[in-house]
């Protein structure tokens, strides 16, 4: 039972993060290493607004997500957009950005572990296991966000445009879609997703300026395992890896540090059989 809860929570977090990551990769071909750093900053922003300033957590969260989206858009406009053609430069620009976020957070909040209070207290027992209402709430919010996102991508005109840009940039451009504006919008959605992840996870975990490193690796593993740019793939792969981590921690409590290794080994094994990931489509080679 513990496994299911832990797996669901980790899986939901990874799913939200990796969907945001693969969206911006699909549309703008940007490998955004700073993606999880945005999530870290959002979690800290919520901490700051609700604990230090004493705001009610829910408006605090919304405010933090809005602020982080703005921050992401500014970073995209001034740091990433000017060097978009140089793939390598974009890559290390985002790494540098993540490092800057980490250091600034470290300066403001110091490296101490911080934790937040839950939104709703209390728990109930099911099968002898404590389930906190906060965990259920987080899971519910994740499902809601994913539903909204699915609706946005599949049922609206904007979603159609995003999907077609991801499929073939040149043709979409010829059909009159403004590529750079769409990339900007997608960046906004993607960072907002990272912000929401921070909002959902912040009450459940301890905050530290280095908390972006571990999910970064797992998020990339999820994206690769599920197939780049495939949202369904990210969703399924996130839960596979989330449950694997939870299982490893449960089965070998002493070997909790092995959880990353086992999950990544599974990813490599799957890639050996299916190089394009579980749900990815083998792209025609771009030349």
């Amino acid at each position, binding site marked *: 039972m513990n496994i299911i809860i832990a797996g669901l929570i980790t899986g939901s977090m990874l799913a939200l993060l990796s969907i945001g990551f693969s969206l911006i990769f699909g549309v703008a071909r940007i490998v955004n290493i700073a993606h999880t750093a945005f999530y870290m900053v959002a979690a800290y922003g919520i901490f700051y607004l609700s604990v230090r300033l004493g705001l009610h957590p829910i408006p605090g969260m919304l405010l933090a997500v809005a602020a982080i989206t703005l921050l992401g858009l500014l970073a995209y406009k001034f740091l990433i957009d000017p060097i978009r053609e140089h793939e390598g430069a974009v890559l*290390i620009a985002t790494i540098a950005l993540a490092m800057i976020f980490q250091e600034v957070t470290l300066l403001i909040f110091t490296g101490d572990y911080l934790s937040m209070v839950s939104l709703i207290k209390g728990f109930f027992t099911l099968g002898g296991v404590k389930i906190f209402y906060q965990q259920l709430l987080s899971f519910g919010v994740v499902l809601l966000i994913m539903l909204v996102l699915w609706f946005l991508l599949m049922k609206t005109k904007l979603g159609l445009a995003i999907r077609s840009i991801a499929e073939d940039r040149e043709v979409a451009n010829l059909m009159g879609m403004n590529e750079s504006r769409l990339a900007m919008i997608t960046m906004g959605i993607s960072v907002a997703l990272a912000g929401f992840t921070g909002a959902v996870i912040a009450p459940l975990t301890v905050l530290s300026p280095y908390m972006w490193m571990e999910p970064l690796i797992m998020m990339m593993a999820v994206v690769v395992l599920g197939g780049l740019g495939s949202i369904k793939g990210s969703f399924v792969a996130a839960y596979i890896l989330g449950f694997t981590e939870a299982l490893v921690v449960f089965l070998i409590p002493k070997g909790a540090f092995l959880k990353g*290794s086992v999950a990544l080994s599974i990813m490599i094994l799957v890639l050996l059989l299916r190089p394009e990931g579980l749900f990815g489509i083998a792209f025609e080679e771009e030349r």
Partner: protein
Amino acid sequence: MGLLGFYLRKFYSLVKGEVLVLPSRIIVGLFFVILLGLPLISQNPYLIRIIILTSIFAILAASWDLLSGFTGQMNFGQALFFGVGAYTSALLHIHIHIPPWGSVPLGAVAAVLAGLIVGIPCLRLKHTYLALTTLAFPIILMGIVFALPDLTGGELGISGLQRLTNSLLGNYYLHVGTLLVLGTVMWKITDSHTGIIFHAIREDELAVKASGINTTRYKLLAFSLSGLFAGLSGGLYAHYMRIAGPSTLEISLSFTVVIWAIFGGVATIYGPIASVFILFPLLEFIRFWPEYRTLIFAFVVLLILLYMPEGLITWARDKIEKQCPRCKIRNVATRTTCRVCTAELD
């Protein structure tokens, strides 16, 4: 005597005709001379230590460039080769008592094997998939290192290694000499027939295949060469620092290598080496404000990239030299005609 004079004259005309005509070559020559002559001016142990560490990391950055810059196989896990080199030489040294002179090359051999182990599954992957997959390997190895604390020392690592030599100058010339030799070797490799194929694989793998070249073999060759050089630097690092710890496998090391190489300019070999020689001492000299160190580093990298997305060294080289439009030979920017074919330079 006459023969010696002949060779001296030949050397002189070679230097005059080939080296002194291009500022970049003069700079490379000066770099060699300054590095080799530095102990004559100052024997400050701190300075010597920084230069030794810089040389070790310069080899690592250049080895990344050999694989990822030239063949375009984005490797985000260069720390794997470094860590395998460091751990293998440390293990052989501590448990089987092989002297450092033997354990460093053996560590490099192990890193070549690691290169093949990573390279073979990665042959089917391309671009971003490859980059994100290679990121996973050092982390898997880190899990294994933590799982076997008796053998590897767990989080503390293996300490108490011997240095290659104990004298200050001996260490200096050993490491700097290794850098200069390996740098030249890598540059020669990339300048050779093989290097041209590496370039071509990056540009258009399908076309290379169509020309009847076994790209699989060349990609594996690139992986193992890169593993060899990175493993050597890992072994040197372990023996110089006298400890091989999990920090050699960290993600941040992999990222730092990528930053160094791209900052200097990829597919050049000299670019990454030069950028390590700029960035690593810079990071050391701003140690007075330890809390701002990484922040300053990240800002410098970000700002320079905004204005020179091709890399600092490539940008600088394009400023002081230009290419002849007819014979593709490089000239000093001040010339108006090409030094070889006398065509007009624009």
